[in-house]
């Protein structure tokens, strides 16, 4: 451990702002990217399902109408 205490770890030898800004923005960017990719995937699967249900409904309506 290079630091004597947790507070000295946080202060990073006086460079706290720059170090934690870097790590924070990086972590945030990576998190956002991963999250956006995952949510995009989920929403795509949802559109497929929604379309499937819509087609099933239309088919049902048409079958009922023709009977």
């Amino acid at each position: 451990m290079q630091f004597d205490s947790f507070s000295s770890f946080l202060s990073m030898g006086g460079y706290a702002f720059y170090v934690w800004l870097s790590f924070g923005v990086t972590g945030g960017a990576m998190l956002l990217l991963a999250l956006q990719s995952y949510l995009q995937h989920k929403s795509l699967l949802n559109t497929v399902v929604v379309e499937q249900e819509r087609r099933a409904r239309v088919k049902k309506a048409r079958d009922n109408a023709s009977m």
Partner: protein
Amino acid sequence: MWKWLHPYAKTEKAYRLCITLQPWFWIGAIVCLFIGTIWGLAFAPQDYQQGDSFRIIYIHVPSAILSMGTYVAMAVAALVGMVWQWRTAYMTMIAMAPVGAVMTFIALFTGAAWGKPMWGAWWVWDARLTSELILLFLYIGVIALYGAFEDKQQGGKAAGVMALVGVVNIPIIHYSVEWWNTLHQGATISKFDNPSIAPEMLWPLLINLLGFALFIGAVTTVRLRSEIIRRELHRPWVQALASSYYENKRT
């Protein structure tokens, strides 16, 4: 020799491969990044000149290396798509592009945050940062070109050409910017090239490099799955996949 790769020209096979690889990428990325970051932040020794601010190197260098590596990977994917006419290759290229762009952004941001305490300026037009900025423009160009096409098959081919033009230009840009930098350098000396790095400092760097690479792989597989679904919307296997996923969600 490469026969084992051939099945992955089919989108369904490629999709299954993504599902298989995904957990390994995520677990590997999280483990490596956790170890590398903690090691680098808390256990690696201070730099005698830059103090604790040099710890930014543990993000800046991996992201800079991988930003260029991802672009080269995009170009390789474009080449495979062009020569062997694989749609999955073009889809992989497009899946990687935003990930590479984010890596480039991280390299630029951490470069600026590192530069401010060192040289007193948030931005300096040194060779490395300027090359990274131009690389970001190249990424944005490829992404914008693909987005401008309605026919995504055509768009993939067009973006592939630009990716290849870009990859040929990256060394030219890099060396010309470096040369330009030597002409216009003021009193600042580029400290980004550490002359010799002690082993206690090197290991966390390498582990983070692996961690970032695995992260890129993980996000790319997620995005590749999305791209495959988007392009193959009406195929029966996609329909079956979506409804089974929905069933699992409901139950």
